[in-house]
């Protein structure tokens, strides 16, 4: 677009409303294991989630291209990115993952949003002590 000159300022204004247009959804998750000393690398975690998807939704489910954007090995928490239309599938398979190498485990979904930006400012993390 050409640069607007001073006399024509009003034409700069443009407003677009996008409804349900976000291509991805982002999830903040945390894995809780029975035995807290178990170590899990980022690759292990992604493989674990993939097996969950394959069990619940078969080969079609295993083909969902989700990303592990960030992972912290100490707290076993991470950020996932998933195409919006596969969010429900990924979420439900996370819920049904109950065992990691024969020990009970559970995924806690802390926050889900269509914007990665809003996962960086969650007021539920505010500490007032």
């Amino acid at each position: 677009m050409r640069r607007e000159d001073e006399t024509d300022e009003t034409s700069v204004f443009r407003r677009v409303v996008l409804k349900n247009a976000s291509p991805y959804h982002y999830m903040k998750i945390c894995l809780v294991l029975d035995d807290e000393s178990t170590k899990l690398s980022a690759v292990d975690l992604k493989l674990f989630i993939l097996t969950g998807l394959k069990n619940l939704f078969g080969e079609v489910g295993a083909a969902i291209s989700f990303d592990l954007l960030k992972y912290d090995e100490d707290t076993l928490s991470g950020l996932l990115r998933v195409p919006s239309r596969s969010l429900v599938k990924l979420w439900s398979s996370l819920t049904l993952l109950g065992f990691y190498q024969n020990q009970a485990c559970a995924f806690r979904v802390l926050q889900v949003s269509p914007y990665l930006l809003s996962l960086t400012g969650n007021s539920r993390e505010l500490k007032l002590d």
Partner: protein
Amino acid sequence: MVRVKSRYLLCEINVPDRSRLFLLDDRAVAAAVKAAVARMHGDYGAALCSIRFSVKYLNAHTGIVFLRFPKKCYRLLWSALPFITCIETRGQKIECFLNCLHVGGTIRTCQKFLVKYNTQQLHRMLPKCKSEEERSQVREAILKCCLTRGNKQEFGEESDSEDDEEQ
């Protein structure tokens, strides 16, 4: 009254050796479909396949099969059908693939389509007959079919009773 809606898939089982079609029974076909759905769509698909899925009709001569799926998820289950490469029956593996010809809401519409489809096929194949003898054989076979009109009647009744069952 509300009817529980279904979709009927009219499929053709293609095999390299047609004589082996006689080994098929509906239980084997159902098991093959269920296995394919479970592989492609996992536990979720297998669960969908356990409600109101059945093989309604199997013609071992022509390899025509009617599959009934719940209307809500028939697309998902349908998508697994191309992944069937063999059907196991009586300890034997029959290599095959399924070709879906028609999707209908009732067995009756599927049957109508099947009759039309078979007529079309016949018109296609008649000019290809090599000798007069073959041609007369085909003609004879058609006349035989025409005599057993009762057969068709029976079929229609079956689809009606099917509807009643679902009400």
